[in-house]
């Protein structure tokens, strides 16, 4: 039996801000977007399964993804490789997903991260229950949590 758990927008926003501040610096916080944009570029996802089912996804522009990676590695953006970028975005979504899983207080397992150039659209049987449209260094960032519809046959 998979539990149905309400995940609050404010809780997810708080943990995303904490991840950003801790690993990317407090000088340039991630902020709510006034006019949500479409990040495109890269996306990274982790799935939660077992006692609770969900997918957490982070979308970033190409420039945003390179800036995140450069800050995490403390290197120049010009030195960032695609392997570095996949590694860094995977860690970013791993932290978001791990903390979302902890919010759910459920016995479940976190997958290893999946990172791709393009849109890692969640499985069609999942509904978006949280969407954060954010901005960082002027680039759009989106964080979403998808879960099965309430009462869905899983």
């Amino acid at each position: 039996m998979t539990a149905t758990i309400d995940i609050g927008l404010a809780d997810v926003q708080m943990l995303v801000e904490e991840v950003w501040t801790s690993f990317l610096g407090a000088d340039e916080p991630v902020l709510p977007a006034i006019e949500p944009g479409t990040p495109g570029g890269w996306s990274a996802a982790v799935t939660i399964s077992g006692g609770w089912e969900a997918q957490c996804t982070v979308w970033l522009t190409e420039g945003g993804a390179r800036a995140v990676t450069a800050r995490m590695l403390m290197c120049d953006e010009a030195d960032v490789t695609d392997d570095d970028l996949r590694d860094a975005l995977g860690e970013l979504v791993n932290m978001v997903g791990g903390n979302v899983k902890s919010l759910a207080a459920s016995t479940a397992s976190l997958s290893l991260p999946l990172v791709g150039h393009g849109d890692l659209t969640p499985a069609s049987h999942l509904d978006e229950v949280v969407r954060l449209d954010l901005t960082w260094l002027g680039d759009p960032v989106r964080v979403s949590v998808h879960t099965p519809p309430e009462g869905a046959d899983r």
Partner: protein
Amino acid sequence: MKLLVVDDSRVMRQIVIRTLRQSGHGDHEVVEAENGREAFEAVLAHSPDLVLSDWNMPEMSGIDLLDALRSSGHAVPFGFVTSEGSPEMRAQAEAAGASFLIAKPFTPEAFDEALGSVLGARP
């Protein structure tokens, strides 16, 4: 002292090593491993004073690494650095013999507090 840092992410290993420096533990020798299986071999080869390990890794997870070490008689102090800090995981870590669990995102202060409890307070 010698620390073994275990994480499948090179980025996170660098962040952990940087945070060790920021927390005043930059003088320790650091050995790195990419997964639990590699870390098990590194414990045999390098006899670290502390293992700092991620939980969720390919090949062999952190909790399986800890179980393997304890099952084979290794008492090396062991701490998790992981993205999941739920009470259930902390209890599982403690039951398996871990000295602490640092949840990501972390601070240098969290590192100093956790490492101090195992390695002793810095002078």
